[in-house]
């Protein structure tokens, strides 16, 4: 066992890669929750994105088409959730669980002839100059596009809610649905769009797993990443930029425990493998204890069914 064999540069570089997926899914879910909808089906949308992206990538031999396909797959599945919760007013918690169960099943059904195949690689962009900087270049500037896209989308989400009218409307719908309706905004339509956006982000997150991170298709390959993305949104206190911090802390633990396993540290593999989940629980407890709604800016209408009243 030799801890010094863990290279911090590679550690940080791989931390960014391993966090990308949950960061994308969490960004999508944050937008959904800002509009006042709690979609617990992230895991299901992710796995559907993973398989849809994989199939399209393999069939068309294009990782880019694959990534687009994964986003479309996630959005398509989220449409079911949108229909059931927004038009048929079903309970959001139960519908989200249903989406996950259904998505896991559908994904393994779609994917059973795709196990064991290697998808074509997603080429990495060559960033001249920056990628040649010693240490920092290897750490930050030798990644694939999706890694950068995930960071850009977090910043875009921040800009959306801070600086644009559209973001203000989404926030208003999520904060107080009756008021938003009284001002003449279409609560249901806003939410349906938010759900679709969230679905495509979750789908892309899944696609990144099966096309870049792993890269191959295995059943149940999301392994709770969707749930961790949900926890990340709570952790962030519904503030987009904090998602990056949360995702990278989480990614750090994941990569560290994998590295420790690899060098054969004197700890049981099981104990190391459960650390990411335990860390998530501890983070949730720390965030939830003692803080009211003011500190975290939980959307006021989160999870509530909207009904027009006369």
């Amino acid at each position: 066992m030799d801890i010094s064999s863990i290279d911090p540069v590679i550690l940080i570089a791989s931390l960014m890669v391993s966090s990308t997926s949950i960061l994308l899914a969490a960004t999508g879910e944050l937008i959904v929750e800002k509009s006042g909808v709690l979609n617990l089906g992230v895991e299901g949308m992710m796995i559907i994105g993973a398989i849809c992206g994989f199939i399209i990538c393999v069939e068309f031999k294009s990782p880019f088409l694959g990534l687009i396909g994964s986003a479309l797959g996630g959005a398509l599945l989220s449409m079911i959730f949108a229909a059931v919760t927004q038009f048929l007013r079903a309970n959001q918690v139960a519908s989200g669980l249903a989406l996950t169960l259904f998505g896991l099943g559908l994904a393994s059904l779609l994917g059973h002839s795709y196990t064991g195949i290697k998808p074509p690689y997603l080429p990495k962009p060559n960033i001249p100059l920056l990628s040649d900087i010693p240490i920092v270049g290897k750490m930050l500037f030798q990644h694939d596009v999706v890694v950068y896209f995930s960071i850009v989308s977090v910043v875009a989400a921040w800009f959306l809610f801070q600086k644009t009218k559209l973001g203000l409307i989404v926030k208003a719908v999520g904060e107080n649905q009756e008021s938003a309706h009284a001002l003449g905004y279409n609560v249901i339509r806003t939410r349906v769009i938010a759900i679709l956006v969230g679905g495509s982000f979750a789908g892309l997150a899944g696609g990144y797993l099966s096309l870049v991170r792993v890269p191959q298709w295995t059943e149940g390959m999301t392994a709770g990443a969707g749930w961790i993305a949900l926890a990340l949104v709570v952790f962030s206190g519904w503030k987009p930029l904090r998602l990056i911090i949360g995702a990278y802390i989480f990614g750090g633990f994941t990569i560290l425990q994998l590295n420790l396993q690899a060098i054969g540290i004197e700890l049981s593999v099981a104990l190391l493998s459960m650390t990411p989940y335990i860390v998530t629980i501890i983070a949730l407890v720390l965030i939830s204890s003692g803080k009211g709604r003011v500190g975290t800016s939980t959307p006021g209408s989160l999870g509530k069914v909207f009904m027009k009243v006369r």
Partner: protein
Amino acid sequence: MTSTRPLTGTRQSQAIPLLSLSGITKSFSNIVANSNIKLSLNHGEIHALLGENGAGKSTLVKIIYGLISADSGEMYISNTKYRPKNPKDARKNRIGMVFQHFSLFNAMNVYENIAVGLDDSFSELDLRYRIIDLSKKYGLPLNPNDVVGNLSAGQQQRIEIVRCLLQSPKLLIMDEPTSVLNPMEIEQLFNTLRKLASEGTSILYISHKLNEVKELCNRATVLRGGKVIRTCNIKDYSTAEIAELMVGNSVKATVRTNKIFGETLLKIQNLYQDSEDPYGISIKNLNLEIKSGQILGIGGVSGNGQEELMTALSGELKPKKGKILFNGSLINSLNSEERRSLGIFSAPEERLGHAACPDMTLSDNVLITCSKTANLTKYGFIQKDLTKNLAQNIISKFDVRTKDFSSLASSLSGGNLQKFVVGRELLQNPKLLVINQPTWGVDAAAANFIRQAIINLAEAGTAVIIISQDLDELLEVSDDFTALVSGRISNPRPVGDLGLKDIGEMMSGTLLDD
């Protein structure tokens, strides 16, 4: 447009009316909310829309504001046909509305709240400047950076008004604007409205408070049961006459035959109670005493600690600091069921969801507060027959208009559900009854019924605490009066000794020393 109504006393009666409605009809599933409504509004006129709860006022203004569409009928703005599909259309036609329940967003700041309600886009800086400018001009001071949830109801209303004024409306609709204001704030609001009217803005003013309407408005249209009963020049009628038009028959006053106070029953010493709502007001150092047979009215605008005082008295939340003594013994740690066993009953403000459970039958709703005192359970098992009988008993004794005990609470009208809730507590022979907003949203007949029931209860020796923002109600029913402002109260005083000035001071909190 032909009109048969006399248009006396208005300044621009000869001109084309700003807004005119004819034949507006709207029905919901089985209720006709508006039937063949005819209404016309002149430029610069403050026009009152009167009627008791359920008369169809809200439906009518929502139709004008484009929130709901009428089944039939026509609307014209300055003789052009007007048919709004949504509030945006209404705002395009320069109609603004201030809602009774504000359409604001607690977690967002004043600037964001205003920006989200505007259809034209402004640059952020420009808008901030205009907010400050307008609020100064009309005496409505606002800071764009304040988080709305932390502001008082009066300040929140200013945001709504400024938001409307930014779109330079020709017509401003105000839905029960004074229900959340203290007397000083009401005076301020009236000044603003008069200024607007003098500049040519028409105001449609919805209210059921006749004194205010007489003070402020030129003409009034009275609605009852969804129909226009009369449109009249308000100065030509007495308050009693208008009241009769609204209710349909003369309003009976409540009767009190005796006033015998007994021993001190409840004593609150230095009570502190935190609010559960992150934007709520906490109770600070509150002292209070009440004797059996006494009715204590606690006035003040809702949201000043009313809910918090209620939960502290009912036992739903344990007080943070201080003592609550009942018959001399400390009851701080008792929960609401244990307090009911002692004879302390409470009826919260929110009927559906707090006092009663909407998706449960009336007989199940009886179990919420009577399960112990009426022995409705045996070894924990629910005695279904007893609960049904009790529910049926309440229905018949308190004139609750519904099919029977199997109706869902959500299917009852506000007045009937309130009669049921009050009846439920009254039948348990409380020693102390705490009731929050007893007649809020209730029609006049039911309100009168409930007030008389409370008086009868006090005559039989029960101590009653009424928390209400309806000042007229408190002055009619209570023996003593105080006001809860910013989580604090002044010393209660007998109602007979109070002048309008005293009440105004109590309600605006000027008597509280810091």
